[in-house]
């Protein structure tokens, strides 16, 4: 159920948009839904980021992953335990760009021994890190490449990206590696969820749904580019530029059902992002264990809602113990 429901959901979305193409609901699927999705996305991102940013970080709860800054003759770890703002910027960028923490991943394993307690071993396990990097970076390249549909002429930077991405040119059309990597990485993440018992156990509908969405998007994209389902890119570009300029073409020439499916799934992904776990895209910047300066004994961290509390004062304490303290020769404030 956890797996099938989101799969059916994505298939239903695809079917509905295909039917829409078939009965000619071009304005709805190519104009209204994309616009609505972008609006929902933008409002969602702002709402979500504000919902975090307006909440205080009452304590400095940095997770320190390296030597502290202390004595001058001890080398401190500027990136794993930063005591400066610049160090924190470096730490967060390492996290965002290279998935630093995920890179640490190890897998535990019990090695049995005869007549003795099994021994634990830890093996480097970079697969999740590699899969995640492949997934996010190929997605980024695919995303950037699509800018060609929104600009005329194609910017120079984009041409360079395409040149690199199309390095393995085999014929026409140029094969863009990124699309296939994205598909493979998404499939890897999905298989991991399905096959590793622990990961399967923790997975929810909301973990499978975005994976199926992305796989659907990548698959329809690849189909449009390389197969018999090839789409009239001139018409697509016409539409996209029109949308960008808020002048959607009044009567678009039929683009093809598969494009409708692709566009609808993309719209769903956009609209879904800020309201789901995909909001980690923004949240990773705001994680207090990573983005605070580790120097909590050097600079006082302010808690805006710090309030007075009941304490057991020294005076009360001395009142309770004065006689015993005096008898033991411990100095007291009141004789």
């Amino acid at each position: 159920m956890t797996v099938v429901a989101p799969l059916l959901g994505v298939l239903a979305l695809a079917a509905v948009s295909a039917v829409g193409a078939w009965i000619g609901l071009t304005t709805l699927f190519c104009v209204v839904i994309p616009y609505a999705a972008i609006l929902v996305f933008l409002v969602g991102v702002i709402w979500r980021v504000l919902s975090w940013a307006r909440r205080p970080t009452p304590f400095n709860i940095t997770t320190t992953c390296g030597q502290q800054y202390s004595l001058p003759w001890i080398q401190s770890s500027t990136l794993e335990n930063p005591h400066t703002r610049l160090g924190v910027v470096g730490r967060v960028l390492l996290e965002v760009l290279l998935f630093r923490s995920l890179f640490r991943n190890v897998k535990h394993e019990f090695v049995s021994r005869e007549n003795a307690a099994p021994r634990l071993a830890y093996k480097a396990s970079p697969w999740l890190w590699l899969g995640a990097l492949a997934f996010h970076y190929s997605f980024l390249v695919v995303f950037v490449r699509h800018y060609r549909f929104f600009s005329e002429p194609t910017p120079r930077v984009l041409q360079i990206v395409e040149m690199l991405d199309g390095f393995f040119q085999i014929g026409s059309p140029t094969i863009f590696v990124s699309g296939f990597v994205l598909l493979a990485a998404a499939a890897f993440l999905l298989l991991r969820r399905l096959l590793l018992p622990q990961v399967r156990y923790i997975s929810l509908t909301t973990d499978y749904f975005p994976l199926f969405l992305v796989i659907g998007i990548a698959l329809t994209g690849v189909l449009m580019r390389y197969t018999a389902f090839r789409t009239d890119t001139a018409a697509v570009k016409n539409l996209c530029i029109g949308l960008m300029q808020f002048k959607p073409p009044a009567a678009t020439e039929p683009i093809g059902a598969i494009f409708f499916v692709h566009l609808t799934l993309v719209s769903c992904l956009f609209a879904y992002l800020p309201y789901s776990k995909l909001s980690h895209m923004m949240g990773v910047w705001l994680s207090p264990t990573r983005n605070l300066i580790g120097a909590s004994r050097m600079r006082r961290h302010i808690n805006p809602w710090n309030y007075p509390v009941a304490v057991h004062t020294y005076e009360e304490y001395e009142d309770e113990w004065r006689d015993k303290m005096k008898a033991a020769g411990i100095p007291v404030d009141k004789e």
Partner: protein
Amino acid sequence: MPDIQLPPPEELAKVSFQPRPQGWMDPQVEFRPGTWSYAGKPKALETVGMPNPREWSPTDADWKLPANWKEVILQGLRERLDKYRSLKVFLDICVRCGACADKCHFFIGSGDPKNMPVLRAELLRSVYRNDFTLAGKLLGQMVGARELTMDVVKEWFYYFYQCTECRRCSVFCPYGIDQAELTMLGRELLNLVGININWVMEPVAKCYMTGNHMGIPPHALKDNLEFFADDIENITGIRVDIPINKKGADVLFVIPSGDVMADPGIYTLMGYMMVLHESGLNYTWSTYASEGGNFGLFTSHEMIKRLNAKIYAEARRLGVKWILGGECGHMWRVLHQYMDTLNGPADFLEVPVSPITGTRFEHARSTKMIHIAEFTADLIYHGKLKLDPSRNNAYKVTFHDSCNPARSMGLFEEPRYILRNVCNHFYEMPENTIREQTFCCGGGAGLGNDENMEMRMRGGLPRGNAVRFVHERYGVNLLTAMCAIDRAVLTTLMEYWVPEVKVSGLHELVGNALVMTGEKERELNLRSEPLNEGGEETSD
């Protein structure tokens, strides 16, 4: 001593990692003996004015909660969602990648899927979804939302008290999600309706009234310190002074009170006394601020503040310049990350300067409190302590990084520098088990009680295993740690997993190696055992 049947280590280490087929959403807890802690006693709760004091046990069907318990908890969650960005972000952005799963010592040792940090967090997150997110309200179970029922509360209790707040998971999480933060807030919510454990509440109450966890009254503290001074005199021929509540001292010295009472912490305490005496520091003990440890960290943020307040208050009353802290784990999390924020600013104190070396401890210029490992490392670096490391030749030492000084401070090199100077045989455990990746002792955050013994041995399995590794490879026979809870619970853990290995604090070894001015020929170590008994090398 509760009647807990512990299986032999070979049996306990056969951990099954097959999760139940029916999933986790349906709350189910079996309070098996050995895996949970006794409930907080009403008297302790009354002492500090916490809600719903009563006699109860987790095994009771009825936990005697107030009629509106659900409202209270949900309202508490609502308030904390507004006060802690950490809580909101951590509940919102987890992608359940599973990287944290086998980073938890309780999961490795028990195989219980709800001990994967991700799932421990989901226990709380599912309730958050149900009552605080639109998707959860509309789609319920489908998106992982669960209603807060009494069974869910029992599950929270069971698993939030199977987390030692060690923060190892947050090192590996790509978003830095910290289960310790969620456990702390989860326990705070449970405390709102009077659900807690006695091994936390009793120290809290004692600490509030007498100043320390052990409930040591002022005159008894003095007696104990004098007793240790006698021991030191027997061993070294030197009578160390014991300044107590002394106005006009330069430095207030605060330690975990466990070191005053329990073997082997007492030897560490003797080490402190010897180093401080030999350095000539003008310092004082306090009977009021006689505890740096703070079980408020395992109760609520408010309780952290209430118990911690005495340290700055006492520093002000005695008119000292700065504060020095002993070897303790969670105590240092509070001192490093909470004290200044909660009870500062300490503008009546001065930036710590060692009068012996002239070193100005700039990194503590706001909090005005330094760790004794920083103090001693600085003394050694400047050649102010005469040391004879061969007096520790009987020991082959390995160092256990305690969770909090490691992951909430980054105190890695100072203790290692000291160790290399005070002993000749120091071996590191494998790199996945030390420094920021260190494994918990299994008994932190209030779980070091006897009734929880099976879970402690399970949680301590990875640590026990790493120690066994260096024991077999290098003949390691001493596990050194800078934490009072470690010194207590690692001792039991070693007896179970690696009986050949004893436990000590860092300053015990410093005390052994320290050549004091005018001392007599040393024949005994701080444990009053003949020096280098069984060791092949002799003192030079």
